[in-house]
């Protein structure tokens, strides 16, 4: 029963530490209930009539939490096998969003369980797809809750887990990596717990700044809270059915800036905060991110102007739209009168590429794209000079060949998921381009699809049949967990005993 059992012992015998997992889920559920205090308070403050439902939901989440923590998960051993991290990750990401359906059901905001599930997963995975056609009619407490789920999901539930399981000696790193998988991020601090704390601090400060800025510019309190949560987490839930067009231009600018910031690696943000700007400018990924944003904006403007739109409107729309897409935030404005197909396809490309690795955004992540493009560039040269030796370097560090293979495999899986998801969506009477775009928008945790013809908003998800909603929910989760954790848990090889 020692917490310091050697690592070696557990290889070959996969016995899941169920007690610990129960305890973990219990604690997380309790935190979840605690987090509902904020929406509850707002609800009371605004007299929106949902106080009782939200309170009930909080209790409803708290009770199983207590049960898990104190009865099923009493006195656990604090160690975890190396492979178990996938299991822990997946179960966390299933339990919490599942419990998150309760507020939607109890307030009666969603028609069916599938709707509630869709909304909840869309929140925690920071996707921002919504089945609510008219969010302004929802109780304000629920709006805040919705945005709050995105904020929590933004940095990731696993960071909570790591923070909670301070006593965990082994396996914590794996859990950390299960969520930031494959991006080879440097930690902010040699000690995991410390770097996690730093991440949360940066994140909170950023949110607070945005909240205050919005408030100063005259945004109503509830809107400011919701938008601050949804923007910094690159979630993209809106509080009004016409998107962000209710906001003043100043607010839009602020939000655009913060969307762009949220698409940057959090470690890079930390450098901004600590004023280490020299290192900041050297990071290839950030430079690529900014370059990509600029190029896309110019292309967008050209597209609009060619389609007959005036320059001012196209510039305003393009900047906002591209910032929203490149950070996979997914806010939208009403479309300009003249729409250009260039923008649709460009949006699609940007969705798949996604934000920087280690940011709250989704997609394939720029770092991977940089590695891929460098490798392919080398490949062309090698076709002419077969004996030349090339290495791929990012930020001056050589990327191992094994890792490159993984990136390629990830790319393949990503496309395969999009295609498979789109196939199921065509069963739900979507046209083929619509299906592909919807699948891509959800696996990249963006939200609204770029091709759907009215508004470009999230209105259309409500019309999907249940199977379509469940498919998209799966895609959101798969995208957020970067595929491998989910596939591992659902592959038979994982459950086979022994090695």
């Amino acid at each position: 029963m020692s917490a310091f059992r050697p690592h070696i012992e557990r290889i070959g015998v996969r016995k899941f530490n169920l007690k610990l997992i129960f305890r973990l889920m219990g604690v997380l559920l309790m935190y979840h209930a605690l987090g509902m205090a904020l929406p509850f308070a707002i609800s009371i403050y605004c007299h929106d009539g949902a106080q009782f439902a939200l309170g009930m939901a909080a209790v409803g989440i708290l009770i199983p939490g207590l049960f898990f923590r104190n009865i099923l998960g009493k006195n656990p051993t604090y160690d975890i096998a190396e492979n178990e991290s996938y299991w822990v990750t997946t179960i966390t990401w299933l339990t919490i969003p599942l419990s998150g359906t309760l507020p939607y059901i109890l307030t009666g905001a969603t028609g069916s369980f599938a709707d509630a599930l869709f909304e909840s997963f869309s929140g925690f995975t920071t996707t921002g797809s919504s089945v609510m056609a008219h969010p302004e009619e929802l109780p304000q407490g629920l709006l805040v809750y919705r945005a709050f789920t995105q904020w929590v999901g933004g940095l990731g539930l696993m960071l909570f887990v790591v923070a909670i399981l301070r006593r965990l000696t082994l396996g914590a790193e794996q859990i950390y990596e299960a969520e930031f998988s494959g991006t080879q991020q440097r930690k902010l601090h040699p000690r995991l717990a410390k770097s996690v704390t730093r991440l949360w601090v940066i994140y909170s400060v950023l949110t607070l700044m945005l909240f205050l800025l919005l408030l100063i510019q005259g945004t109503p309190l509830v809107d400011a809270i919701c938008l601050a949560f949804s923007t910094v987490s690159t979630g993209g839930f809106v509080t009004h059915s016409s998107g962000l067009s209710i906001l003043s231009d100043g607010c839009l600018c602020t939000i655009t800036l913060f969307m762009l910031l949220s698409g940057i690696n959090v470690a890079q943000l930390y450098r901004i905060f600590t004023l280490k700007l020299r290192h900041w400018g050297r990071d290839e990924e950030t430079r690529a991110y900014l370059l990509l944003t600029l190029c896309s904006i110019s292309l967008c403007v050209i597209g609009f102007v060619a389609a007959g739109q005036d320059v001012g409107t196209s510039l305003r729309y393009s900047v906002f739209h591209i910032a929203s897409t490149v950070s996979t935030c997914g806010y939208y404005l009403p479309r300009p009168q003249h729409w250009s197909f260039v923008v649709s396809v460009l949006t699609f490309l940007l969705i798949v590429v996604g934000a920087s690795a280690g940011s709250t955004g989704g997609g394939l992540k720029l770092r991977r794209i940089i590695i891929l493009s460098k490798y392919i560039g080398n490949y062309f040269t090698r076709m002419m000079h077969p004996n030349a030796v090339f290495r791929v370097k990012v930020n001056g560090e050589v990327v191992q060949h094994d890792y490159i293979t993984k990136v390629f495999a990830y790319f393949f899986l990503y496309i395969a998921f999009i295609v498979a998801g789109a196939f199921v969506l065509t069963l739900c009477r979507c046209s083929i381009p619509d299906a592909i775009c919807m699948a891509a928008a959800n696996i990249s945790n963006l939200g609204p699809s770029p091709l759907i013809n009215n508004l470009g908003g999230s209105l259309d998800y409500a019309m999907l049949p249940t199977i379509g909603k469940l498919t998209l929910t799966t895609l959101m989760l798969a995208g957020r967990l970067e595929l491998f954790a989910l596939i591992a848990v659902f592959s038979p090889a994982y459950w086979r005993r022994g090695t």
Partner: protein
Amino acid sequence: MLMVEGSLMLSCLIPALHFADGTASAISASGLFTFFLGLLLRVSYHDARTITDRRNAYLLVVLLWVVLALFGTLPFLATGTLHTFSDALFESMSGITSTGATVFSAVEWLPASILLWRSMTQWFGGFGIVLLVLAIVPSLGINKYSLYTAEASGADNTGKQSSTMAATIRQTLGVYLTLTLLFVFLLWKSGMHPWDALNITFTNISSGGFSIYNNSLEHLTHLQQYIVALAMLLSGVNFMLIFHLVTFRWDRIRTKLDQLSFFLGTFVIASLFVCFALRATAHIPWADALRCATVQTISVLTTTGSLVADTSSWWVPITFLFVILSLCGGMAGSTTGGLKAMRVLILHRNVRKILHDRLHPHAVNPVRLNGRPVSSEIITNVMVIFVVYVLVITVGIMLLMLCGINATESVGAIIACITGYGPGLGLSGGFGCYGAFTTAAKYLCAFFMLLGRLECLTLLILLVPAFWKK
């Protein structure tokens, strides 16, 4: 090469004279022109040495296809069946890359010689790609068609008879010709006019898909449809494999068993799905559903593009499945387009390996194909091709939309062109045609046919600036 094409054109004279449709002089003029130009080039460069430089090899391959396509336009223009160069180029490129996309909304009014010419370009193009892989690969070494060389060398280790390239080429050619003759004979015996049998065999054995009837295979009897389906199925199998099958070389067959079972497995599963889906949505009898499903699925999987019915009215998920299947394609070393079964297999197994590595970090677990480990060189080659493929398709769709084509149509057309399937989605799908596309869109599609046929990298490398530097 031009000489061969010229003589092919001249051979189109026979039906022209036979049916006396008044196109004889035009065809013979273009045939003679091509033939003599080829002769001239041959004579003036007869002292040129064999290609040793890689860059020349890439250039040669691309030029070969472009020149063939350019000269292929002559009969269309000379006979006046097509009036604009873009149409003629589209049709000719579609033929020589054995794609099967057409600008003709109706083909039955065309002169017999032109019909034969279309069929023949496909037959020639279909074989050309196999020949290309076999003949020019050695000078390119492992990089370009490392897939195929890997396969070929794998086979070479097990025996000595066919270890030389010339023998392989001879065998492949033999298989191709035998299959052609066999199916002409079969179709003829099943009650088809020999002329029809010849054309239909030409376009299906090469996985091309041009038809001499407006309603493609629907025109045929059920038995004939199944025969054509068999022809398509065989066109999707590696020709060397067929050779070994016929000569009972079981030890050789084992080296390609994985691909074969993947190819056939995909075919069976997809057909069953399509069969049930057709039964459920179109309410046709089981026998018809099964026939339509099997024939059409194999036509898609081998990227042939012959149509057993008007697929544009089929259920959308079936159409989407067809798009996915055409991207998979048949086996490497056959006449089909798409990614090829082998690459899809390697991609899949690599993912499985990586997953396994994560779960068991200390295990040694190479990607295996047919029981042999696959070298990392090949895996990266496959990966690069996959990424480039996806990228090129996306860019293509974007460009096509810029030409004023709508989204569904663009997706369908680009994928149909790059995989060599032929019919797209919407207006260009089913029994429709590409005639309504704008000139720019037609050039773009023709370019994508070439891109798909030469597997992207060969053509794209010409666009890299470093290629042209000394």
